[in-house]
């Protein structure tokens, strides 16, 4: 009911136990390739690589991946269309290189999105956030983000349940009623989040919380083969794109 499909996929992915740093290297590498290499054949290769790796070795359900890739499509399509419509003294018209420019934009964006999704569908946030410490993100910030991650599921459950209860009592049967109900819903969830934080503080004090939320990070060792494969693959991808 409140599960986020991408998150669900990350927890059961075949790459779940791979080092988050390894996966970060691969995804960010692919994202940069998508951005920097010429769209043909660079973006196409990046997109294909991301999809093949996700659906193949990482065993992400195709349905989840496909649906998630569709999310930014509306923005990409509308944005690309807007850039190639030309406004001038003579009103609206197509830019001279409209098809190529739009195709280029869509190519970069879709390939980039697929590359980010490869990371998102294979790495739970609770693995990724501790890895940010290596990028010199302060521990306090990582802890705040970790609590955010845990608590957003608690609040999403409240949100959908309260909304369902409101709907049952006709709270969303018209625009007016719906606004009123949404205001109450937001207020209820805000109150709930406060209350949760206060009670959690009580609960954690009993477990000896003094400074910070230190936990033992899961040991997810880096794989030399994976890193070597990543570097070689990205280099090959870049070489092919530049030569072609």
């Amino acid at each position, binding site marked *: 009911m409140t599960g986020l499909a991408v998150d669900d996929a990350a927890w059961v992915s075949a790459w779940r136990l791979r080092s988050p740093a390894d996966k970060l290297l691969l995804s960010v590498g692919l994202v940069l390739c998508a951005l920097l290499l010429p769209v043909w054949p660079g973006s196409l290769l990046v997109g294909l690589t991301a999809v093949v790796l996700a659906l193949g070795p990482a065993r992400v359900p195709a349905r989840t991946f496909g649906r998630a890739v569709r999310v930014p499509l509306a923005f990409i399509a509308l944005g690309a269309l807007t850039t190639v419509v030309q406004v001038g003294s003579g009103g609206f018209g197509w830019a001279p290189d409209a098809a190529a420019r739009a195709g280029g934009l869509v190519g970069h964006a879709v390939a980039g999105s697929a590359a980010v999704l490869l990371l998102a569908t294979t790495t739970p946030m609770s693995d990724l956030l501790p890895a940010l410490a290596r990028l010199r993100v302060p521990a306090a910030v990582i802890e705040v983000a970790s609590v955010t991650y845990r608590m957003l599921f608690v609040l999403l459950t*409240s949100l959908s*349940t*309260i909304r*369902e*209860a*409101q*709907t*049952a*009592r*006709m*709270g969303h*049967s018209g625009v007016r*009623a719906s606004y009123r109900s949404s205001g*109450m*819903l937001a*207020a*209820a969830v805000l*109150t*709930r989040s406060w209350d949760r934080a206060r009670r959690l503080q009580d609960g954690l004090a009993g477990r000896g919380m003094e400074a910070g939320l230190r936990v033992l990070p899961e040991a997810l060792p880096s794989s030399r083969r994976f890193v070597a494969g990543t570097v070689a693959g990205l280099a090959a991808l870049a070489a092919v794109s530049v030569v072609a």
Partner: protein
Amino acid sequence: MSHLPLAAESLVAGYERGARVLDGATLTVPAGRRLALLGANGSGKTTLLRCLSGALEPTRGRVTLDGAELRHTRAGLRAHRQEVQLVLQDPDDQLFSASVAQDVSFGPMNLGLTEDEVRARVAEALDLLAVTHLAGRPTHQLSYGERKRVAIAGAVAMRPCVLLLDEPTAGLDPTAVGEALAALHRLQQADSTVVMSTHDVDLALRWADEVAVVVDGGVVQGAPDVVLGDDALLARARLDRPWALTVGARLQTLGLLPDGALPRDADALVAALPDRPGVRT
């Protein structure tokens, strides 16, 4: 309000960890009688109740009220919700207004009634649940048992003919359970059919006219002492056998209890025992 029969036919709904939650569940809510819906946590009780209330659209199968099929359209749901109300387990998910009276008025206000009508509905609902004295109190100051009853009042103010309650007694102490059951009794007298989900088999035996066990995606429905005496079914459903049936059956074979239906609680059992062993009076 009047009693209307509500039914679910061959429902397929919900999907969790690679399996259907409900897979061919058929249930008839007998108009005007008390139905207890039993099942372990995660068995699909709540999914079934959500289908019956219209909150969840089943993948296959249908829900009917008085023979007419529930359509998941705006108008269809609107009509259904006026007749069938579901109260969820956690009262905090139902109470979102500042004060008790305001919260109970939420449904009637959305029905577009006049202020006087809304006021009358609220007063009536608070009275049925015996929480009139709480009307002006902020919801967050109430005890858990009080919040549960106010949440039910919010649904009752819609004047549904069928009231579905998900675990209305969970987390309540014995006295609060007694108060909740008394309120349900008044609701039934006021012509609402009451369905309660629970995993307390002793309570179900004591309270229900009929029970339905949700097990393996389906529903087994029948008389309480028959269904709750079926050990194979109970094992499949991860439920216990009510103590009264275990002890009662043994006392019956000893000739200490009369043949026929067994007593359903401790008081009835003690009353049914003879004054002297071996001699039935």
